[in-house]
């Protein structure tokens, strides 16, 4: 198709879609006018029914928990696909130690970067854990906390180099985290059915409103999401890095390869 024909096609498609888009935009509620009715209902009902202060977690893990289960497996499928694509001919066998990029100079890190990463890394991990654990009390939860935890592991890479990072991170553990998190979430849906309750019905004690232990089953589901997201994001990063390298035993085990 020639560029001109493409532009004509784009213009035609734009003309066809314009009335519909204009109608939808005109029908939107005014900016910042009202909270939707569904939101009002949740705000009124969730604190009493679920003992949870963070409504977003109440929706994600309980009221619309099935949607989150779907998202969870979407993430699992996306990461599995990426890993399969990146591993390619390398196969399943992952080396225990860091692989090297041939012909690549090792650029020494400045001490300031190492120091900053050694200070920021543990603090980031701690904040990630905080966000995960306080899912039902403050904004945040398994997904956000999991991404923060995965970012914490990236700071190890920035500070210690790739070899140091690989010494701390085990690929099979990441697989187990990713799959195990998703499995835990699915079990949270299935386990209540053993007692005769509905799928993902909140059968655990709900705990105290505004307490760390509130929300019952939500806490377990939240933990599953956190595990899966931490494992998944770190795995993605690991496969990304290994893809550009070739397996070769380093001359000495502690040698740095950035």
């Amino acid at each position, binding site marked *: 198709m020639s560029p001109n024909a493409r532009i004509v096609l784009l213009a035609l498609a734009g003309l066809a879609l314009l009335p519909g888009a204009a109608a939808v935009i005109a029908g939107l509620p005014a900016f910042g006018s009202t909270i939707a009715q569904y939101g009002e209902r949740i705000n009124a009902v969730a604190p009493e029914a679920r003992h949870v202060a963070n409504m977003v977690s109440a929706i994600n893990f309980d009221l619309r928990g099935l949607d989150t289960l779907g998202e969870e497996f979407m993430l699992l499928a996306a990461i599995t696909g990426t890993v399969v694509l990146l591993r390619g001919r390398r196969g399943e066998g992952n080396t225990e130690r860091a692989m090297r990029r041939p012909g690549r100079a090792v650029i020494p890190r400045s001490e300031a970067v190492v120091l900053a990463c050694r200070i920021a890394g543990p603090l980031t991990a701690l904040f990630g854990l905080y966000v995960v654990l306080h899912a039902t009390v403050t904004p945040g939860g398994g997904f956000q906390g999991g991404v923060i935890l995965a970012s914490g592991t990236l700071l190890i890479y920035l500070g210690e180099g790739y070899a140091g990072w690989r010494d701390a991170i085990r690929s099979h553990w990441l697989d187990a985290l990713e799959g195990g998190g998703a499995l835990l979430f699915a079990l949270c849906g299935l386990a209540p059915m053993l007692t005769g309750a509905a799928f993902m019905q909140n059968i655990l004690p709900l705990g105290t409103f505004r307490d760390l232990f509130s929300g019952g089953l939500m806490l377990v589901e939240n933990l599953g999401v956190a595990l899966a997201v931490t494992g998944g994001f770190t795995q993605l990063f690991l496969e*990304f890095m290994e893809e550009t390298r070739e397996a070769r035993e380093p001359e000495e085990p502690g040698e740095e390869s950035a």
Partner: protein
Amino acid sequence: MTAILPLLFLFAAISGTAVVLVRDPARQVFAIAVNGLVLAILFDALQAPDVALSELAVGTAAVPLLFLVALMAVKTQPPEEDS
């Protein structure tokens, strides 16, 4: 409060445009991070702290870090050949 929102929209537009206009990939990573930060503040101002936290973690930390590391990995020539 009324002045904050238009200001944030303006910042979001400026930083979003900057991501496109900056051509050097290494600088573009930081432009994306700044854009993510502005969006996170905007979401927070619109009383969506959960989304703001997601945006902060993914858009400002994880994605730029991944890009930065990927750029580092792709650069193959030793530094003395650059100059």
